[in-house]
């Protein structure tokens, strides 16, 4: 029973990463209709950002946690303004291709400078060790990651559902033309929302740095699973993508503990196949025109 509880928390930690990346993908998709292939690369940059901050500037983990997402927020906005916006009126596939090209550049640039092997990043002091409640023992850092991921997702939900800015973004997502016709300057929010999505990926990267191998390809491996997650959840719903992220994290963790390795690795993809059969638009997605 204790083991089951630990596996569940573990799954929520991994699901937190899925959820943060899926949330970023969903807000960007909602606002621009674009799926950002480079999301995994920005996650990787977040982890390397923490590494650089520590080794080049001597900034502790806590500073990284604040600074790296801010830097990536700016990077994301510049990226959107200079490149993504140029393709905004074309088929969204072009932006998918563009962000794929950017992924190749970022990965190889990082790999060139830091090498393809893992760059070490130590656990921050204060979050080492484990928390034990009775016979339940769990690493402190993982609980911290889960807490931050949950906080981010709840804050994003609150911002979108309860604030005026969120209202504008939701309206622009659902009916961009009508929102514009009502006098709302939708274009003004596109760039910050893109930056926000990238910042979220960067924050996830900082969180991942002490607990996962920091390598140039860490984002690519993750983003493909996250793509499966958003196909399952449907990108149309922000809450849906977050819930799917956490849910699949937990399911994968259970499968890792109680099923053969092959089942655990294939689970997300098999679930994707089932969802495509039963509900092609995704669990929380809107129905596409049936063709």
């Amino acid at each position: 029973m204790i083991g089951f509880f630990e596996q569940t928390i573990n799954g929520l930690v991994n699901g937190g990463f899925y959820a943060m990346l899926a949330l970023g993908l969903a807000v960007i998709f909602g606002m621009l209709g674009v799926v950002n292939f480079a999301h995994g690369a920005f996650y990787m940059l977040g982890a390397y950002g923490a590494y650089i901050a520590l080794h080049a500037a001597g900034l502790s983990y806590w500073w990284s946690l604040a600074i790296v997402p801010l830097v990536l927020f700016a990077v994301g906005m510049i990226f959107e303004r200079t490149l993504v916006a140029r393709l905004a009126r074309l088929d969204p596939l072009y932006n998918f291709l563009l962000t794929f090209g950017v992924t190749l550049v970022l990965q190889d640039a990082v790999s060139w400078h830091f090498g393809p092997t893992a760059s070490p990043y130590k656990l921050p002091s204060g979050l080492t060790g484990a928390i034990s409640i009775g016979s339940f023992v769990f690493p402190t850092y993982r609980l911290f990651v889960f807490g931050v991921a949950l906080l981010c997702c709840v804050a994003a939900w609150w911002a979108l559902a309860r604030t005026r800015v969120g209202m504008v973004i939701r309206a622009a997502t659902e009916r961009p033309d009508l929102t514009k016709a009502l006098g709302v300057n939708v274009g003004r929010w596109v760039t910050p929302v893109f930056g926000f999505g990238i910042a979220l990926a960067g924050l996830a990267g900082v969180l991942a740095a002490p607990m996962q191998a920091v390598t140039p390809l860490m984002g690519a491996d993750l983003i493909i699973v996250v793509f499966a997650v958003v196909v399952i959840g449907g990108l149309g719903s922000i809450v849906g993508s977050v819930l799917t992220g956490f849910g699949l994290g937990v399911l994968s963790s259970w499968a890792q503990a109680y099923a053969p390795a092959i089942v655990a690795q294939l689970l997300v993809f098999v679930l994707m196949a089932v969802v495509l059969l039963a509900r092609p638009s995704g669990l929380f997605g809107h129905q596409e025109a049936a063709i």
Partner: protein
Amino acid sequence: MTLYQRYGRWAILLVGAVAALALPRVLYPPVALDIAAWALLAVAVDLLLGYVGLLSFGHAAFWGSSAYTAGLVAAKTGAPFPVAVVAGVIVSAVIAVPIGYLAVRRTGIYFAMVTLAFAQMIYFLANQLDGLTGGDNGLQDVPRTLPGVDLSDPYYFYYWMAPLVALGLFLAWRIVHSPFGRVLVAIRDNPTRARSLGYPVHRYKIAAFVLSAALAGLGGGLYAMSHQFVTLDTLRWTTSGQAVVLVVLGGIGTLWGAVVAAGLTLRLQDYLSLQHFAAPNLILGALFALVVLVFRRGIWGTVSDLLRQRQPADPAAPSRIDPAAMPPSAV
């Protein structure tokens, strides 16, 4: 009628044939082998993207599973190399049926994500089935045989494999210019209308997907034969990505553009690796992004526009993702 319009097709065919025959003389023969195999993969991806409007980011699944099948058949039975390659083609076509059936339920970006995810699933599967695939070690020492012929020299093997490559490219061209291909273009341009005219859109898409996968499988099987080993890299997402890069560099919906791009790109990658340059994708990715941003018609499209003296492209074949629809300055 300009000179180009009258004789252009034959001139291109002649230049292409001469270039293909001269390739292993001009280049290091193993690079020529790679170019031929990758050209098939790129043409397979272009068949879907250019003529059905479906961006597959998962063709590594078919390339790699054919490579493993061909490698295993050749290693376990000692079959001649064309037999091993055909076995690979069959397996990739069979795998493509369920993947295609599921993937065509989505379109656009979702289709790309779905194919990418399924290809990753095949990758994990191959990694887990290490008794069969050799896991991280891959398949080593795959024999490449043909009764009565010595194929050990890559230079000679190129000319033995060239007919299969030519056959694959011819089939792609034939598919595009058949009534079936015309229906695919109609589906790409207006699926609702094609459906209302009575065409079963999903079935056409699945058929195109399976044909494309078989073509990718032909490339993958030949790739295994030319390298004489198979690694998990053949199933990795980077392989799918490279195929997409080749298609876009060459020009979406041009078929031969992908072949030209395969030649130029593999030559560039070979050059960079000889220079011990550790970040080839830095250059390739930047070139790719530049093409997507500015030269969306790719190498083939841009050059043929120039040759046609800027006449509009064949109105019968507009791309659904229409590269010429909007100049970047209009945004």
